[in-house]
């Protein structure tokens, strides 16, 4: 096919630059890892990696099983049955999404502490005085970590699976029942097999979050890959070793993504049910209704209500005792400031990348958009380790240039200013912006572009006059999701923040690691409050518009 050279190339070029910036840390990671000394690698292989890999896999397996069980059961419960409170439970089950894993671990460490409220109350109930005489199993264990992560991450599975259950035509379920299968049987033999691709999508998000988690595993004493990477770099200053482990971790994340792709291949059969009539939920009454309600409330309580109530209580006590400290205020503004800048850049880059696909209509633009979205699968720690050489490289280049031309040293320009951290945020969350804009653009018919073109409008003009006004809601949603994710981000922030700068998340981390319980509850509460905003949006749209894309 004939093409005039340079058609749509400004958009393609911009998209290429963004993709390059996303790829750079991964390439740098490989490069750094290859430079590590062999004897160090021997040490890692012998002592660190086996434990880290084993713990990571056990954790992934446990969290995966738990979230799949809780998520699909809850999704079936609220779509196939009707009971008092179902309308509220339906969206309340999403609430744990607002609680980052490190916050839930922080909260439960205190709640379940031997002298914490739960065990104290239990002892009072049983009439035992000495904490040494009665103890619940320690939360600081693999089992504790699996349970905690499972109960804050199950909403990913719940959300995607419920959407699939709502999309499934009632005809299938009714046919199955006329063939003599009970409601429970329908779940196992029809609904669940059909929803498997959706479960896979939700599960992959759960596993990526688990791989990404640093706070919870570290507080609870699990030496996962993330924790080991962090320790190797921070305590040993061994970047090559950290990079080698980061590569291993990247392989795990990649495995998760591939597994999800593989599971999604079978999606066609789920899409057959186009003119779906939603399943009429069965009304439960009496003790059954009560049991359903209790079953549905439990995950919300463990994953959200209890830790949130604890944080509110602790935060109030702290404020009453010491007021709102200056530290928290400055950290809040630092967090918001960094997140705002990162959000603006992310949305801008996402818009450019997604629109390049639309404006040029070239396959290359689509490939670049997928590359630009890779960051979502790169755990924060891996990203940070990969970014360090990139950033220091740029800094050295700028510094030598400035010294040659101006005679001054620019020093740690990027790391010191937080630019490196913002770079990391953009890479990590660009998928949200690209996906959001793509979803928005996909709802603008191609004929609008063509009409505008024949009316003499250029690609830039079409973006300004047609697409921007039409995708503004999608853009706003994407921006909000990116913003909140930036506010919550911990692993990359820990490694890339400028010296002396604390965000709410790093503050919480610092106190949890030190075992001090001062302003951390306030910081945690602020993070959860910010996290609630996208959950509310999700709850509002998820029934209306069933969509299991990257907008999650």
């Amino acid at each position, binding site marked *: 096919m004939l093409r005039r050279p340079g*058609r749509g190339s400004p958009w393609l070029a911009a998209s290429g630059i963004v993709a390059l910036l996303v790829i750079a840390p991964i390439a740098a990671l490989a490069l750094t890892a290859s430079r590590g000394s062999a004897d160090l690698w021997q040490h890692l292989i012998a002592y660190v990696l086996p434990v880290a890999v084993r713990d990571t896999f056990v954790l992934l397996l446990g969290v995966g099983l738990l979230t799949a069980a809780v998520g699909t059961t809850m999704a079936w419960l609220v779509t196939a049955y009707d009971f008092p409170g179902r309308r509220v439970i339906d969206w309340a089950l999403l609430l744990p999404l607002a609680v980052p894993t490190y916050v839930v671990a922080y909260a439960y460490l205190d709640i379940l502490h031997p002298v914490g409220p739960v065990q104290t109350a239990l002892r009072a109930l049983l009439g035992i005085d000495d904490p040494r005489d009665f103890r619940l199993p320690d939360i600081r264990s693999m089992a504790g970590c699996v349970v905690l992560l499972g109960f804050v991450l199950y909403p990913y599975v719940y959300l995607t699976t419920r959407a699939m259950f709502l999309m499934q035509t009632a005809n299938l379920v009714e046919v199955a029942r006329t063939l003599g299968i009970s409601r429970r049987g329908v779940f196992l033999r029809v609904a669940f097999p059909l929803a498997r691709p959706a479960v896979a999508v939700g599960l992959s998000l759960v596993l990526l979050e688990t791989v990404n988690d640093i706070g919870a595993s570290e507080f609870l004493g699990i030496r996962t890959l993330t924790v080991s990477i962090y320790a190797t770099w921070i305590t040993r200053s061994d970047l090559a070793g950290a990079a080698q482990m980061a590569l291993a971790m990247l392989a795990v994340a990649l495995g998760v993504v591939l597994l999800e792709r593989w599971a999604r291949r079978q999606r066609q059969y789920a899409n057959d049910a186009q003119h779906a009539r939603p399943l009429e939920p069965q009304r439960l009454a009496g003790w059954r209704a009560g049991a359903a309600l209790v079953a549905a409330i439990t995950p919300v309580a463990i994953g959200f209500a209890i830790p949130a109530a604890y944080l509110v209580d602790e935060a109030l006590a702290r404020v009453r005792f010491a007021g709102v400290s200056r530290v928290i205020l400055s950290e809040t503004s630092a967090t918001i400031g960094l997140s705002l800048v990162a959000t603006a850049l992310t949305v801008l880059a996402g818009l450019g990348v997604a629109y390049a696909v639309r404006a040029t209509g070239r396959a290359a633009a689509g490939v670049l958009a997928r590359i630009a979205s890779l960051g979502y699968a790169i755990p924060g720690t891996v990203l940070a380790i990969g970014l360090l050489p990139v950033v220091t490289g740029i800094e050295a280049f700028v510094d030598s240039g400035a010294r040659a031309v101006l005679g001054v040293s620019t020093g740690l320009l990027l790391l010191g200013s937080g630019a490196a951290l913002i770079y990391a945020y953009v890479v990590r969350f660009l998928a949200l912006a690209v996906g959001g804009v793509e979803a928005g653009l996909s709802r603008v018919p191609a004929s609008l572009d063509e009409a505008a073109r024949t009316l003499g409008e*250029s690609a830039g003009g079409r973006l300004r006059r047609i697409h921007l006004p039409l995708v503004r809601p999608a853009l706003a949603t994407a921006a909000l999701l990116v913003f909140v994710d930036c506010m919550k981000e911990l692993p990359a922030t820990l490694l890339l923040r400028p010296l002396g700068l604390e965000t709410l998340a790093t503050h919480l981390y610092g106190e949890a690691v030190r075992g001090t319980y001062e302003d951390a509850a306030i910081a945690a509460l602020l993070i959860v409050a910010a996290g609630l905003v996208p959950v509310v949006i999700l709850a509002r749209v998820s029934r209306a518009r069933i969509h299991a894309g990257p907008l999650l």
Partner: protein
Amino acid sequence: MTSLVSVVDAPRGMPVSPVAMPMVAVDRVTVAFGDLLALDGVSLEVETGEIVSLVGPSGSGKSTLLRVIAGITRPTRGRVRLAGSEVAGPATFVEPEHRRVGLVFQDYALFPHLTIAANVAFGLKGLDRRVVRRTVGELLERFGLARYAESYPHMLSGGERQRVALARALAPQPRVILMDEPFSGLDSRLRDRVRQETLDVLRETHTTTLVVTHDPSEAMRAADRVALLHDGRLIQYGPVEEVYAHPATAFAARFLSEVNELSGTCCCGRVDTALGSFAAPHLPEASPVRVCIRPHHVRVTDRPTGIPAMVVSSEFLGESDRMMLEVPGLDRPLCLRTFGRAHMAPGHRVFLDVDPAGVVVVPDDDRPA
């Protein structure tokens, strides 16, 4: 820029030179999507002010041809010239935004976030605001849309949206208007009226127009010339009456109206069938041919003159009856239409008289020589 209405209403000087340059010239255009040839060497010219229908079954390439002229689809081979200047060729490609063509879509493609006035004004760029306002006002007036100027597309009916789409396409004074199934979104009663109004405006403004349609009766009603496409090829291109009266192939005859097809062989410029002998002047000797007889060109009488036949079934269609008749020597029943005759029950014996003027003899597509 002069005001649109003055341009539109002034009798535009038709080119008087003996070799009038066609407004649209498509020259051996091929479009390949992978292995699939959407267009296969199509050539066609449209004169200034002419209305041409592109008609064919779905997948025949008619929409692709329209999109090639608009510049949305690039031809794999071949050239397109607009008003004499090449817009697509081996070395040139003019993007649609610089072609000055107006496109009207089946779904109208009105910008949902803009008012009707803003939609119509969309293509009027770099003009004085007062000129834009006046031009838009005049166009809306012309299309009877003035009271909707500040409304949004979703508030209008289908017919009104269609008019907005046309007004928007006409506003920047395009060299040619391209319409892709512009009336198929309307219900049948409304369709006839909107089509007539649209054609009135296009003829009045002397606008060169290509209309894509899959409906042969619409194609013939709307256009000066008809281009019949099939499997990416141009089967026939000519004035409406001529294409109808002298279809080039059995496909063309079949597509433009219901026909009875009889196979035969050309012999001494004639072909003999069970329904009589018909002239086949331009066909090679001994070549397989098809004799196409349109149902309303067969008269049926009770008088024993002509070919005897027996009624197999009869269907009441309102204005006419559609009858199937068994004719000795034909392997399939013959279809015919009668107007204002008494209903005839199956088994009734009649006699047929075929009007030779309504018979078309074409080469046999299925049995090439």
